[in-house]
């Protein structure tokens, strides 16, 4: 597609060429061996990059999946005398079963249960391998055949090298494609909690499970390679030490970059090898001293909190901005029932000892802008969270578009046509503005992992991004489209949230203090945007402190005080009300 080579692809091309040419040079067999081990480790670390660096989860059990891959093929080849290819399939199948079960158990608990679960499970598996007669106990299985492709056996270091590195590079390419896809954006949104992606209608549990499964599967493939390269399998492949080595490689490589995975694997492998030679000479005795050095390095590296030794070299920064053409927006015609779009009746939320929201009633009609105001602590944001499904109400009902949605999850409510912004901006700072907005359009796409990896999602991607771009134009952020979202000013970040909410194609928009941090001109522009949206039939519920804005744009205002409804009326009525004035300023004595 591209005629000239973009500058950011040059290091990748050079690396690939080097890898391809190296075995043809008269290099020592020792280096081929090292590179083969590095390639195997890189596969595992690529999985960790996805899991830890991108999705913010971690596993201390990757070596257990390597072990499953290795023992599956070992058992089939040595004990059952079957083909290594069947071994690969068996390994992948067993991995899916175990990783799926572990993921189902731990992924909806908070983040540290997955690593704890995987540690315990990994240690357990190690003992199973070491004590099972059919798997050769602690001696393991020996005499595995080499992998053969057709009649060609990969029994030399160099032939194995080409096959292995071919797969490694393909995996890296697949991962890079995945990260720049619809699923990839959802994965990258996981790191800072699940509230925002869930509000965009993204199933975060499913997304986490995908990351965990993919990481486990590449580890299993690495185990298959390892078994047929060493031609033996023993329990040490699945030890906790091995799991930590992989994690160490990922940390050294900067955790979040694909290039870092390779660099980290290479640095660790070579350092480990050298230390095993140097340290005994230095200390004059045998022992696993390299463990001490690795441990100290790991601690120091994390304390200095940089992006890994090689973090600056590469990354998914290699992606080029996609060309987008902001389309005219197709609007979905949501079937509108008779009566109000949003109906809130007797909504109540009690926290222990405090009734934050106490029997609130109000309606919002299609195309209407309703302001929700009140002094600090009146319960506005809580009301907001109850409607959006971020908190379950104690009692009362919420009806959206004629359907009772009380107590539904934020995701289900998002699918019903409600979109929200957050009081404290929630976005993915490393993603571009455009990508952040495209998160909102997640539900309008359907391309999965496979489509992304095979590049079959191009048309849908283009449509999603064009759509997102159109919403950016609408809120006036078109000029910043390809910047990282973290670079935006606070005011622009709030506009980004509005654009993101719009790209879910909502019937009702809940905005939590959208004008906070905006400059005067930006506020005027915001008011224009809100009016235009309401003219298109979108209903807006606005929590806001800026009275000018509220009085200017709203059709109706709901005033809250101490969790109760104080007054509901037109801006003029509210302004005239002595009760409202007293609530804000106190009564005259």
């Amino acid at each position, binding site marked *: 597609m591209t005629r000239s080579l973009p500058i950011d692809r040059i290091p990748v091309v050079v690396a690939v060429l080097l890898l391809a040419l190296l075995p043809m040079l008269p290099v020592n067999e020792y280096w081929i061996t090292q590179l083969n081990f590095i390639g195997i480790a890189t596969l595992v670390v690529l999985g960790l990059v996805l899991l*830890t660096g991108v999705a*913010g989860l*971690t596993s*201390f059990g990757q070596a257990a999946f390597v072990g499953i891959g290795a023992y599956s093929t070992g058992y089939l080849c040595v004990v059952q005398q079957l083909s290594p290819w069947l071994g690969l399939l068996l390994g992948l199948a067993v991995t899916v079963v175990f990783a799926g*079960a*572990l993921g*189902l*158990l*731990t992924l*909806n*608990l*908070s*983040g*540290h*249960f997955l*690593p*704890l*679960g995987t*540690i*315990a*499970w990994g*240690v*357990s*598996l190690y*003992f*199973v391998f070491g*004590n099972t007669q059919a798997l050769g106990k602690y001696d393991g299985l020996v005499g595995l055949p080499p992998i053969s492709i057709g009649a060609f056996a990969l029994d030399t270091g160099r032939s194995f090298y080409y096959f292995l590195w071919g797969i490694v590079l393909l995996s890296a390419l697949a991962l890079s494609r995945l990260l720049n896809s619809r699923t990839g954006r959802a994965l990258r949104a996981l790191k800072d*909690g*699940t*509230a925002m992606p869930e509000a965009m209608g993204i199933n975060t549990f499913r997304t986490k499970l995908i990351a965990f499964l993919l990481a486990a599967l590449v580890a299993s493939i690495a185990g298959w390679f390892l078994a047929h390269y060493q031609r033996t399998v023993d329990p040490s492949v699945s030890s*906790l*030490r091995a799991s*930590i080595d992989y*994690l160490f490689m990922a*940390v050294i490589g900067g955790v979040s970059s694909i290039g870092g995975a390779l660099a980290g694997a290479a640095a660790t492998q070579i350092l480990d090898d050298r230390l095993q030679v140097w340290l005994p000479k230095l200390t004059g005795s045998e*022992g*696993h*001293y390299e*463990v*001490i050095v*690795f*441990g*100290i*390095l*790991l*601690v120091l590296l*994390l*304390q200095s*909190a940089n992006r890994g030794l090689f973090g600056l070299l590469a990354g998914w920064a290699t992606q080029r901005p996609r060309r987008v053409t902001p389309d005219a927006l197709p609007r979905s015609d949501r079937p509108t029932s008779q009566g109000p779009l949003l109906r809130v009746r007797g909504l109540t939320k009690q926290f222990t000892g405090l009734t934050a929201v106490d029997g609130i009633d109000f309606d919002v009609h299609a195309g209407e802008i309703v302001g929700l105001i009140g002094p600090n602590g009146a319960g506005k944001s809580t009301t907001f969270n109850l409607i959006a499904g971020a908190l*379950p109400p104690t009692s009362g009902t919420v009806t959206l578009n004629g359907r009772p949605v009380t107590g539904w*999850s934020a995701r289900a409510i998002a699918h019903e046509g409600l979109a929200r912004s957050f009081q404290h901006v929630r976005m993915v700072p490393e993603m571009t503005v455009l990508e952040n907005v495209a998160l909102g359009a997640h539900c309008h796409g359907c391309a999965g992992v496979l489509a992304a990896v095979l590049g079959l999602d191009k048309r849908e991607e283009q449509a999603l991004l064009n759509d997102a771009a159109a919403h950016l134009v609408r809120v006036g952020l078109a000029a910043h489209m390809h910047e990282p979202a973290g670079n935006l000013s606070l005011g622009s970040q709030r506009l980004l949230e509005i654009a993101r909410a719009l790209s879910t194609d909502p019937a009702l928009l809940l905005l939590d203090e959208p004008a906070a941090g905006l400059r005067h001109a930006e506020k005027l522009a915001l008011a224009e945007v809100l009016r235009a949206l309401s003219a298109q039939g979108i209903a807006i519920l606005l929590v806001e402190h800026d009275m000018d804005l509220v009085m200017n744009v709203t059709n109706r205002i709901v005033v809250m005080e101490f969790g109760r409804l104080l007054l509901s009326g037109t801006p003029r009525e509210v302004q005239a009300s002595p009760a409202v004035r007293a609530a804000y300023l106190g009564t005259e004595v």
Partner: protein
Amino acid sequence: MDPSLAGILLVDGLTHGVIYVQLAIACVLIFSVTRIAFIALGEFVTFGALSLAALHDGRVPGTLWLMLALAFASVLLDAAGALRRHEPLVRVTVAAVRGLSLPILIAVVVYWGSTRGWPLWANSLLALAIVTALGPYTYRLAFERLADASLLTLMIVSVGVHFVMTGLGLVFFGAEGSRNPSYWEGATIAGSLRIANQALLTAIVSILLVVALWLAFRFSLRGKALRATAIDRFGARLVGISPARAGRLTFAVAALLAALAGLLAAPGTTLFYDSGLVIGLKGFVAAVAGGLLSYPAAAAAALGLGLIESFGSFYASAYKEAVVFTAILPVLLWLSIRHRRAGGEA
């Protein structure tokens, strides 16, 4: 299974269980105060037991030198930090001298006492002193700078610490395991059951320890400060509780609990330099069963784990460890279901 065999397995399981109780409590304590899932806890267990073995043989344990080295490093870092904040030199010097006085005192007593053939209980106190002191220095050097880091980072760091400590364990104690002499020989006969006195002692010490901890958390100012930090780190800081100090104190208590567990366990099992991981993880499995929050639930789970282990080793001795660690899966399932019912995001 005949009842006398069941009785033996029961006693055996509970004996291991009370040791896991100490570790589970230490895990919950560390996690709730500092948010660290401290994988290396088991190393304090082996360090305690193996240090005692060395002292009992009339040798100075390598852990002493480690403790001194970490103490000097901690004090140096503290002093450097204070100087950078332009604190007066006199005050910095006084703080440094004060900080070094205890570790040096311990070192002198150990060095002097190790060749004198002191009785077992005296050597045990020395071993406890060394390992307890290791705790806060470990926190100071590995974790204090990372107090605000993510759970994930803290966990990976704790694994790094685990590797350093295991590696050093090999250097200090060699690859051979050791089994310490019993504190209380003989056995007590209760009905058809024969309970080793050592097991009784273990149970008594554990119970006393749990009660003492409970009292300390309930009534002492420092205990209350730790509880406050566990409930709300930021709030505790606002009322003048230093998170760094809370972290160091927590690690001291946890190291003491773990080392004591090691001393109590060592007469019953042979411990090697690398036995710590599996022992510590058992404490963790129990702590996870308590959601890493609840002390009573963690303690109950620890006793249960001891029973699973002893009955498991009877039915499938080769898979004993595998059975114990697989026990975490139903626990996670239960936590997961409960979490889904609560319907919230943790």
